[in-house]
């Protein structure tokens, strides 16, 4: 019986560790090596990084991805990247006004003659949507719908680390090989990747040359959940982790020019935009941790007082 209990306890412990790696065939998103500044109970967003991340979003991502839950005013709210204590109401913040005005949107309300005109956005407006609707978005992206990024870090296992790893995880352009072949009289263009040259695979890297065929309009990424076996030329038991997505590698060195002089490397831009998206998904994180600390101190003191009250009240009762 005793052994049974030990066994049961062991299996239970195993159950909890088992829950930790429930995700499928994609590579585990470890995030940047130094971790994130917003982790831990006192962690905060790096404001400069979130500002740069907004620039990456604006100049790169926003041509396909909307963020319909965010308004420009959010950028200037407390905890936001462009918060200025001089303007407690972000709608008055001239910098936020200027950022909003850089975007031309279709007014959500009709003008005097009942038309929805194009006008520069104000801080009260929602982020500009790149497409009028989902059908238009699909039509412009080969049938794939670019997901809304408002809460993307909460909607993916791994959060900001997933975004960071996905953006930096693509094989280098130099590994793509184009193959042209004739099948039944028609010319077929294919892109293949030699997995034995792909260093980011780590322990999954095959020793022999083995090619992965990218389907048309799709790109391989080891962090994308999916199945590579049908497209893998080598031993299917050792097919590389990850899957295919319709978004190709977007970041190239120097794709944006940071105004603060930070060098725009791929990993720097991925780091900044992932942190910006983490803020966008959880803009009240800092307020939450502040209230949390006060709550913990209050409850801790209350617990101590109640413990001594309990001891005192029960001191004459055998129990």
């Amino acid at each position, binding site marked *: 019986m005793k052994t049974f*209990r030990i066994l049961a306890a062991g299996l239970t412990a195993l159950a909890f560790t088992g829950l930790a790696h429930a995700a499928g065939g994609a590579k585990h998103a470890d995030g940047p090596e130094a971790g994130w500044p917003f982790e831990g109970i006192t962690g905060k967003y790096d404001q400069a990084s979130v500002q740069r991340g907004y620039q990456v979003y604006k100049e790169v991502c926003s041509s396909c991805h909307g963020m319909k839950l965010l308004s420009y005013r959010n950028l200037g709210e407390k905890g936001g990247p462009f918060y200025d204590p001089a303007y407690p109401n972000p709608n008055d913040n001239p910098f936020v006004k200027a950022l909003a005005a850089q975007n031309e949107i279709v007014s959500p309300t009709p003008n005097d003659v009942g038309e929805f005109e194009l006008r520069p956005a104000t801080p009260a407006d929602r982020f500009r949507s790149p497409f009028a609707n989902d059908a238009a978005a699909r039509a412009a992206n080969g049938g794939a719908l670019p997901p809304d990024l408002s809460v993307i870090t909460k909607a993916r296992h791994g959060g900001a680390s997933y975004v960071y790893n996905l953006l930096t995880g693509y094989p280098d352009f130099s590994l793509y090989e184009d193959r042209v072949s004739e099948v039944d009289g028609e010319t077929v263009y294919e892109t293949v990747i030699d997995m034995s040259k792909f260093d980011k695979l780590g322990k999954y890297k095959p020793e022999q040359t083995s090619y992965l065929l990218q389907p048309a309009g799709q790109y391989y990424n080891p962090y994308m959940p999916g199945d590579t*076996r049908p497209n893998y030329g080598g031993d299917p*038991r050792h097919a590389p982790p990850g899957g295919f997505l319709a978004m190709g590698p977007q970041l190239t060195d120097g794709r944006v020019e940071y105004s603060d002089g930070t060098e725009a490397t791929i990993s720097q831009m991925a780091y900044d935009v992932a942190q910006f998206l983490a803020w966008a998904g959880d803009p009240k994180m800092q307020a939450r941790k502040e209230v949390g600390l006060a709550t913990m101190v209050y409850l801790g003191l209350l617990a101590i007082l109640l413990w001594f009250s309990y001891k005192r009240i029960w001191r004459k009762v055998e129990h």
Partner: protein
Amino acid sequence: MSGHESTYTPNSAFERWLDKRLPIIRFANDTMITFPTPKNLNYWYIFGGVLAVCLAVQIITGVILAMHYEASVDGAFASVERIMRDVPFGWLLRYIHSNGASMFFLAVYLHMFRGLYYGSYKAPREVLWIIGCVIYLLMMATAFLGYMLPWGQMSYHGSNVITGLFGAIPLVGESLQTWLMGGPSIGNQTLQRFFSLHYLLPFAIAGAVILHIWALHVPGNTNPTGVEVQDIEKDTVPFHPYYTVKDAFGIVVFLIMFAVFVFYAPDVLGHADNYVEANPLVTPAHIVPEWYLLPFYAILRAITFDLGPIDAKLLGVIFMFASIAVLFVLPWFDTSKVRSMRYRPVARQFFFGFVAVCLLLGWCGAANPDDPVIPALQGEPSLVVNYTVDGAPASSSYVGGHEAYDAAKAFMASLPAAAAPSLEVRPAPAFAFRHLSLILTVMYFGFFAMLFVIGLGEKTKPLPESIHKSVLKAKKAQSGNAVPAE
């Protein structure tokens, strides 16, 4: 109704006037102040108070959330996010409410296991136990309805699975399912009725809680010895201040744990897919309910075989509902007259086994049924070449390292093109979660059968004469040789 003599004396003219018309102050005094409570209750008895706090927290935060929530398929997802972004302290309300559901269930499970261990379901407390089971059932319904409201992917597809269960019932199933959903599929009308019912049921729970407390105050509390109160003077203390202060301490410690989740890991108990707006056309790879329903989900999926005319799906539904229904009849399953497991050495071991079975069922519910329980024990997958010989399918299998792959490739190359060879990876047979689930399901029901059998011919330890004497004995043992007083 409280089973003890009232000691309330009205002190003012108004109290005397009111006492003759509606003795509500007397009632409050008798149930919450002077109610005699066994003096030996341990910390496992705090969860009744914890649960009352949980219910109050859920109702208060829920009422405020409902002021801002929009029950429509187009607006629900965005309105929940708007609550977290634009409503002052909306993030706090929402995270308290969503984590509060988990805390509520954590507390109710500990409360139920405590009841099981100390025999709180036995005469004369059968009705008290059954009302508790009704509350638990209402809680599960409320939690399920509430999980639908954020209109995420898991909300939608989880609701699809659960409403689908009703569709498995013979003859009336399909009509019942349509009636529940308010149409042929889950849509706006479903969301609105779920919201309405999610607002209604907590008040039904509150009503049942009043009955639960009434049914508690007729026979009084159990206690760890299971021996009934004999001498109110020696065996009990008044509820206030003795148990108000002890419960308050326990509740605050519980709230600290609650606050850790709310402030530092608010989404850890949820599922990432529920931050993706519901899309009927895209099914998540892995549909799972919230953690507190996982054991029942495992039982549902454990049944993969037909039994006579009953197909596997219906059988799974029957077993799942039976796993809850068995709790209702538990008072008559247990044949032992001794309440507390403390004095039932054999049954006690089975109780701990039952707790482990419930936890392991939860693990199975979270896992993919076809995955191996212990991946390290699974053999190497084999390579199978599927091809056709004169139109008939054939296959040949290869096991081993790289040479197996080369051999399979060479074999494929040797086949004519008409054979249409294809390569497949076939995992080695393994002990999978669906097997473990089935074993655990049998063990789950087996526990209740064992309670029946053990009670018939069990050797129990001698019971203490009274609560008072057992307390003194434990005290002596503690000061004597530091044996932990159990």
